[in-house]
């Protein structure tokens, strides 16, 4: 197994922790990312006791699903995509609402 570096830490056999920097990622982003992995693992998140800007996400094996080091890495990649979705949505979310509103607005005849 390759040596893993922070932010991924192997806590025990089949138990990994990923530390997420809250100055880089929004709370909603972490939730959306966790949701996508929750069928495979028990996932727990808690604020780091020593550093309030870090949230530790802990993966624990469920239904004999093996946790390989790939999983926390995939989680990190998914976090990035989710944060892009969050950022871009902040830019165009209101436009999406405008499109739907305009498309379904009642037709007024003169």
């Amino acid at each position, binding site marked *: 197994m390759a040596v893993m570096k922070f932010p991924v830490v192997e806590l025990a056999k089949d138990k990994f922790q990923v530390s997420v920097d809250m100055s880089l990622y929004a709370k909603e982003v972490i939730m959306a990312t966790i*949701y996508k992995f929750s069928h495979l693992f028990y996932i727990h998140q808690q604020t780091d006791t020593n550093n309030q800007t870090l949230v530790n996400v802990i993966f624990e094996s469920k239904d004999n699903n093996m946790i390989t080091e790939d999983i926390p890495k995939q989680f990190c990649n998914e976090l990035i995509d989710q944060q892009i979705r969050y950022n*871009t949505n902040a830019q165009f979310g209101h436009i999406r609402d405008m499109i739907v509103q*305009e498309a379904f607005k009642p037709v007024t005849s003169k």
Partner: protein
Amino acid sequence: MAYQLLPFRFEWFNENEYLLTNEVGEYIFLQNNDFQRFVNGELDEHSELFYDIESKQIATTDKVEDVVQMLATKFRTKKSILRDFTSLHMVVPTLRCNSSCIYCQVARKNMDDHSADMTKKTAKNVVKTIFQSPSPCIKIEFQGGDPSTDFDMVKYIIEEAEWQNLFKKKELDFVICTNLTLLNKDMVKYLKKHKCMISTSLDGPKDLHDTNRPLQNKKLDHHAIFEKNLAMIRQIWGNNDCVSALMTTSKHSLGRFKDIIDEYIRLGFNNIFLRSLNPYGFAKQYKEKIAYPVEEFIANYKEGLDYIIELNKQGTFFVEGFAALLLKRILTPFATGFVDLQSPAGVGIAGAIYDYDGNVYVSDEARMMARFMNYYFKLGNVNENTYQEMFNGELLHHIIASACNECLPVCAECVFQPYCGADPVRNMSEQGDMVGFRPTNEMCKKTKAIIHYLFELLQKHDPEINRIFWSWLN
């Protein structure tokens, strides 16, 4: 940023590229670094790449209000299927059937058991309810059992509907879903006279068809009777288009898609809808006998689609229906209603089913659930409830609120969302609630894999494949 991002969804498509789609299904592939530059506002708005993105209405340098107008018009077109409300009305005149298909879930009755035949009073109320739909187009589809086992009731409903329509003046169509084996010349002449199209089931060559769909009378040869009657119907009708066929994939069908497609061609069909089984209601041991993992279906589907493309390349015009539906959504701005895959879901608002006892369910699958004592999706009964109570009641409003994949978890951000749909009934039956959980959802896995594959094919920019795909879209 010199440009404004417009609403889009994205996903990593392969090692090197992202796929982006906008609200109305226009798409573009971007290399990883181009994607990062694009979302960070670093693309040169005078570059070729930006012009491509702008032409897909994924970003703009124009006034946002103007682009919103254009996108809203396209969005309205895509959603125009909602305008008419329920147009597909499936009616079950009886549960009697002469087959014993291995995947049947309707608790069919034997031929001499009349306990699940529709009464005239119920039939009259069914037709009355149907004609209260505001839709200018009404399609009445007879399902069963096999509706030909109670052909008198089919005739009664057709004539009652035609009578009602003298006043309502809607576009009225009929379809009868039957295994063909009980149809005789007089029946076919009647169906032709009343423009009732025939939809049948064909699971493949003789051995496979008879394994999946044996007749109860073991002495009879299902496939042989099917073939004889198919010829008789076409001869009376004078063309091949009067009968369409549907296939269902059982465990026995896996590895046989080429044979199945060949059989369709041999029998003069020019399309097939490669359809997976949905055996949620079966007991576990039985499920193991006929069902299979969704991954196996996907692999078979791809092989089947490749084969069909190859046949088209060699000059045989033959369409795969599911791919054609998705391609129409990917490549054209047109609306495509398909009750099983649309957003909002078609349940109740595009199609509804009227059971033999007058119970009304939002879909055929909802009717199957009722066989297992789950009446969650029952809208009411034509003998007891008004149209308004059933089709404008709290229940249907509640169901539809959970049936838009624009706002379902994971779907809301899915790059394939503009082409996909929601299915609250299936979510409920398979995952316990109407919202469902996408990461383990079988329908999601299947749809995602198939759309992904279609994009892989489109990305090849093979002129022949593109020509074939476009030829399927009429």
